[in-house]
């Protein structure tokens, strides 16, 4: 089981891979859409990769609720 620091680091790697955003930019307070400028297609890619990496399920209705990087880290931590 990954702790929140490890999840944040892993998520940042995925965001870097999919959207080309420097891992240092991917912090808990950042909004995927407003701050990191990630579009809906890229969010689907990020969710699929996060599911594989952390062994969680992120249904579409949950994905829509994950506004910030911190939301995603908390969700993954609780559901892994």
């Amino acid at each position, binding site marked *: 089981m990954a702790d929140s620091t490890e999840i944040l680091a892993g998520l940042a790697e995925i965001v870097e891979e*999919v*959207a*080309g955003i420097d891992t240092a930019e991917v912090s808990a307070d950042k909004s995927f859409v407003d701050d990191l400028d990630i579009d809906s*297609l890229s969010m*689907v*890619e990020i969710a*699929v990769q996060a*599911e*594989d990496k952390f062994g969680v399920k992120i249904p579409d209705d949950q994905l829509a609720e994950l506004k910030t990087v911190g939301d995603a880290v908390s969700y993954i931590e609780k559901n892994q």
Partner: protein
Amino acid sequence: MTDVVVTGYGATTPLGGDAQSTWDGLLAGKSGVGELRAEWTDRIDLPVSIAAQLAVEPTDVLPRVQARRMDRAEQVAVIAAREAWAHAGLAVEEGADPKVDPTRLAVIVGAGIGGVTTLLDQDDALEAGGLRKVTPLVVPMLMPNGPAALISLEINAQGGVHAPASACATGAEAMAWAWRLLKAGEVDVVVAGGTEACIAPITVAGFVQARTLSQRNDAPQAASRPFDAGRDGFVIGEGAGIVVLERREFAEARGATIHGTLAGIGMTSDAHHITAPDPNGGGQGRAMLAAVRTAGLQPSDVGHVNCHATSTVVGDVGEAAAIKKALGDHPVLTAPKGALGHLVGGAGAVEGIVALLSVRDGIIPATLNLENKDEKVELDVVAGEPRKMELTAAVNNSFGFGGHNASLLFTK
């Protein structure tokens, strides 16, 4: 009616990663053909193992994240469009005012085949790993209007995005449609051209089964030999060509460098056979004559024809006969596919740029590998060395499966 002028051009081809290196390669007599490089050649046995692949990998040019969101045909279109846009002096710093009203700017760029490599890769991913392995980008990557739409995003073109599809005539038809849009005064600037990157086992197999490809596998650089008696088919290639076309008044008002005039166009169809050209060349001739007529010129003004001639047994002879019948026996011919291979949807655009530069610079590249001209070709074809020649007008021909005939006429 307004004139339509060319103010910028860009290309990425088997001869080079930009228009200048492509032009230099053609004049130097280089070949873009080589042994086909692909991971599937080990497991799929085909009688063709040669191709004209890109000189510069698009993934070496584009930022990684942009590249992974695009099909290869989209990548090369965007690279060529960026070059053309900058060449036309229309690129501005981010945040600065655009030099063209976005609502008066259109894009017309098509492909002959389109995103087939994406379709194959993603189908493999689906079969192997299920839905989760399919990228959400698959549709925008394989749709035929994808290249044009991505270019519109790059340059903020809001005056319409169009994607003609007429097989190997696509690149030339895109410029012809742009000419009509500009002549009608609907927009001030059109970014137009064609793209292709469809070298995949199924496309190669399909062209083999249609009996169109050269099988001169032991001598790749000699395989594409338009008008030569020893020709045995074309060599499949990949690449893109894009031009910036403007209404002359608009270009002059902004002080643009004008490289030439797209003075006339012709687009006709054969309605004869789904792949074979009309043996009488009637549709080809009508396209050339329409280009001459819309330019307000006479056939005697056309000193040069940049031929479609792909190196197939039937096509090359038919085109030469159609040129002679429509324009007379005076035009001097060349066929860039000897060096470039056949860029399918990109061919007409890249070769249109070549015809433009021949008029501008007064020099016609030689037809590579033309050593022993087919005796049924009764016209003068440049072979060996480029020929210096002052040109009033040059015609570029592009024909496609489906019976499409497109002719572009360039003047200074």
